[in-house]
């Protein structure tokens, strides 16, 4: 089946919805998401696994979807930026990026948020150097990163508050929050 055009079926749960798609083995996960499923929130920035704009979660872990074959996620759960919040109910990270001006052009933002979500799932209370290390694989040309780091710190605080059952104020910049 090495001839061009031969396809294999991939069954994958994307943002909670089971999908089955016939793909060529060489198709990348990012192409499956964007071209076959129309989920264009996942961006292609560099296409050489440096920029992180294509970051999505596979079985809960952040990956660069331009460096994963679609056939490799057969049987997995994939979460994209479209799957973590909606316009009426933003994810705390989406809310915090908005509130703290964590984006300008917005191109890197979906990948940045998916990468930050991976960090906060492992470490709900990261310090600033930890956040900076965690987003090392995501490139932003607008913000200079300071407001992105602030946004992630604010989202972490908001998520901890929500977890503790306390009132959940709008996430605001707290550079000194630990």
């Amino acid at each position, binding site marked *: 089946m090495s*001839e061009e055009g031969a396809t*294999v079926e991939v069954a994958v749960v994307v943002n909670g919805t089971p999908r089955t798609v016939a793909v*060529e*083995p*060489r198709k*990348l996960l990012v192409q499956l998401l964007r071209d076959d499923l129309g989920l264009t929130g996942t961006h292609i920035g560099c296409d050489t*696994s440096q920029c992180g704009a294509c970051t999505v979660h596979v079985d809960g872990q*952040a990956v660069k979807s331009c*460096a994963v074959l679609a056939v490799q996620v057969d049987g997995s759960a994939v979460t994209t930026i479209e799957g973590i919040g909606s316009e009426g109910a933003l994810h705390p990270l989406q809310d915090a990026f908005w509130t703290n001006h964590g984006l300008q052009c917005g191109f890197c933002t979906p990948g940045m948020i998916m990468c930050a979500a*991976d960090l906060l799932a492992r470490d709900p209370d990261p310090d600033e150097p930890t956040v900076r290390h965690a987003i090392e694989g995501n490139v932003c040309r607008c913000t200079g990163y300071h407001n992105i780091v602030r946004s992630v710190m604010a989202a972490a605080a908001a998520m901890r508050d929500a977890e503790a059952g306390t009132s959940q104020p709008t996430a605001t910049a707290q550079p000194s929050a630990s």
Partner: protein
Amino acid sequence: MIPAAFSYTRPASLAEALSLLAGASDGTKVINGGQSLLPLLKLRVAEVDRLIDIGRLGELQGIRPGADGGLVIGGAVPYTAVLASPLVAERCPLLAETIADIGDVQVRNRGTLGGSVAHADPASDLPAAMLALDASFVTRSSAGERVVAADGFFHGAFETDLRPDELLMELRIPGLAAGTGTAYRRLAQPASGYSLVGVAAVVRTDAGRVVDARVGITGVGEVAYRARAVETALLGGSSVADAAAHAADGQVVASDIHADAEYRGAMAVVFTRRAIEAATVRAG
């Protein structure tokens, strides 16, 4: 960028994987995380006819204690799992220190230890640590199993002792004797993050004297190597600075747009000194 067309097989068992490899053509390549291979395929620096995906074979998973206070790590274990392992933190902090800065989180979630060792990129960090730790690799084909020492496994850039019909099953890392300190120090190319120079040092001291030393260096020569002249000098009572001066002895030092041979050779000496100093302090 889209790779040239290939076929893809995900064997359901180790036996099936080995039997596929036994009869495989030259254009067959094993894939797991794919973090080195896929970028090469996308750039069409490499082309394959067929990929055999070993990512879900249970036999290549797991981090276990070794009999001698060491570690056994499955060939398909991703970096992230090693970094999260309390057993690794306890028994082999050098391993965690070496891989903490490989790529980025996304790459470490997919990339595997066995993949890095089998790929043998001359700038990859892990081989330096494997050499300094005196690790060995268990390989298997349908003909049987081999245990190959890391020292001698790396033949050249992207060339190893691994045969085309073999899988790298596990990495065996011996335990460290009491009084041993370890450290990894590297000079990263600022844009790519790849190591221009990476030095792993394992040093055992007794009453302030170095009684055992192993130094693995990556990024400098054609492939990672044991810096035996450095080790010999240390054991002979040389100062760390004098010993480190031998870091690139016998090597054809790599030269490229990021670091010419003179600079790279000089940095090999500096980072060798730093790694040995840090390991010695930790040895207590």
